[in-house]
């Protein structure tokens, strides 16, 4: 006969096993889809590059990482700063930040407008906001390309209006890429802000007016703090895909206005430098993580200061 303590122990181990079994699918998904690929990237980044793409497995080399920042001059073999890469880094960060800011400035009033409509009208607006998602990103981006091209409607209208006398070069500029990013990611900003505004108690706005706050003060002291979670979520949802954008800079930026996504693709494709591509990918990951930490720390810190 086993003692009560032994029985309890067996039951505990059985329970422990069952708990692990229940966790297994989630853990497997995380390992296969997230941790695994990251590990592969990390390993690839410290291998020598293969002659025809891929990596020379087993041949340890830090060339991938050094190539992120410096490159060997093909003529005199000296090391020079890889300023092309750094320019692309900077452009990516800059465009992603400006796109996030622009979507915030456009998205907040949009979301506020929708959230203050009557209920049935609200869902119609939300439908309109999500309609662009039904069309392929590439097609939408090509549509913008058509709009901005030298013979496109925008240039034609400007010429017709007499504002310019020959077509303005709009396509293949940073501005075009920015426009594309803002257009593509705007709904990702509007939706979370709308969600938090919809949950907001509009009595708070009246309470603000009642306590001598003017419209702008109510906006600043009450509405914006109340929908801060939405503003943060929207910014993250826009910034992350924007900094790694591939299609938009490829189509609207032409060959020369690359962003990190294009640079990485180049290493895995024509460049045949997989270790560099892997190292660049990890750099992108680090930039995004650091940006997120700074952003979330900054905004929650302010909130704490508010809360006293």
């Amino acid at each position, binding site marked *: 006969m086993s003692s009560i303590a032994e029985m309890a122990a067996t039951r505990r181990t059985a329970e422990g096993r069952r708990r692990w079994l229940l966790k297994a699918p989630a853990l497997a998904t995380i390992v296969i889809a997230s941790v695994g690929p990251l590990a592969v990237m990390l390993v690839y980044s410290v291998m020598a590059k293969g002659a025809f793409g891929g990596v020379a497995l087993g041949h340890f080399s830090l060339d991938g990482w050094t190539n992120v920042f410096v490159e060997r001059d093909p003529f005199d073999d000296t090391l020079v700063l890889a300023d092309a890469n750094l320019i692309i880094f900077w452009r990516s960060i800059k465009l992603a930040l400006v796109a996030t800011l622009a979507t915030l400035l456009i998205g907040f009033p949009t979301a506020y407008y929708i959230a203050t409509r009557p209920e049935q009208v609200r869902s119609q607006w939300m439908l309109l906001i999500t309609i662009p998602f039904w069309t392929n990103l590439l097609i939408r981006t090509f549509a913008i390309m058509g709009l901005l091209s030298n013979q496109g409607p925008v240039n034609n209208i400007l010429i017709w209006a007499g504002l310019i006398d020959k077509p303005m070069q709009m396509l293949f500029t940073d501005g075009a890429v920015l426009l594309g990013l803002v257009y593509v990611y705007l709904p990702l900003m509007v939706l979370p802000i709308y969600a938090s505004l919809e949950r907001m*108690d509009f009595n*708070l706005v009246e309470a603000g*007016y009642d306590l001598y*706050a003017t419209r702008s003060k109510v906006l600043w002291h*009450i509405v914006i703090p109340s929908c801060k979670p939405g503003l943060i979520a929207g910014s993250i949802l826009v910034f992350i895909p924007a900094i790694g954008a591939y299609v938009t800079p490829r189509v609207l930026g032409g060959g020369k206005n690359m962003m990190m996504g294009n640079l990485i693709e180049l290493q895995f494709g024509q460049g045949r430098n997989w270790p560099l591509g892997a190292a660049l990918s990890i750099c992108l990951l680090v930039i995004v993580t650091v940006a997120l930490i700074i952003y979330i720390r900054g905004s929650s810190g302010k909130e704490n200061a508010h809360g006293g």
Partner: protein
Amino acid sequence: MLALSQPIQPQTADRRLAVQAIGLHKSYGTGASAFLALDDVSIDIAENEFFTLLGPSGCGKTTLLRLIAGFNFPTNGQILLRGKDIAALPPFRRPINTVFQNYALFPHMSVAENIGFGLKMLGWTKSRSVDRVAAMLKLVRMETLADRRTSEISGGQQQRVALARALAPQPEVLLLDEPLSALDYKLRKEMQVELKRLQTETGITFIFVTHDQEEALAMSDRIAVMNRGRVLQVGRPREIYNAPVDRFVADFIGESNILSGRLVGQAAADAHQVRIAGAVATAYGKAGTSGDGTVQVLIRPEHVDVLDSPSSDCIPAVVEDEVFVGTDTRLQLRLNDGSTFTARLTNSPEQEKIRTSGTQVWLRIHSHSARLLGGDHVQHR
């Protein structure tokens, strides 16, 4: 119009008026679907008065409060604050603050920051504002919770914070929109006393909205009874209870027996002989007949004696049910004209008497307690 026809109190007549509503109309929507939320409302509210707007939901009391606060604007009419027309001013330009039904405390601020918000918006200096917030916290007895988040305090405490926040900028008028409705019974009783104390201590005019007649009677200096966008009667709690102008007010305030009777003669200038269910009683008030000589007579359940033997001018009745409710016993009776009557008898241990269903009794109406309901107002029902 109705409000103006009421005699103005002698002790309020010489007091300065805080708020005056003159011929206020408010309608929502247009054309056939338009809804008239306020229909020609005129009210005078004196300074330092605890004034209550009382009525069922949808009677227009909250609409009136929102017009005074400035959240909505009247379709027609004037709102005067100490003689100045404020009907077109936005809420942040009116020295009037509101305690909201759900309190509407700012969730991202602490208790102290909530209370100081109005002061900050008014541009008070930090040190002055800190002192005022401390005084307010003391006033509502919340000193120890100044740094708490509003989500970390109880409903009753939130209520106090909402009060302190609205009182902090020293408004000329404080509006309270059913502030006690979310509290449980015991807390509500406590807050009634607390509110009355705050009003007396601060000397600020309170305009209080409620659908709870007991609350209104207990706290108010004067009450305006509203229904369907109109003010039916304005008066002190006793007046409203003892001399309601019409059937609606009589029904809404307290328990009431409204019987139809027939005028048989005049006893004095404001007293008439009325035949009710086989007996003749003296009823007071204006005799408004509805054409065929019948009148409505109000008798409160506590204003009758129940006798076990017949006596002159008593109304015969049959007991249908008896309910013991602690301090009182409630008797459901049927009169011989078929109408029902509720009598409320105060219990005392030495003279407890149980009357079973079917017992014949006689009702003696206390002198001066039968009230004629004015015919002028019958059409409101």
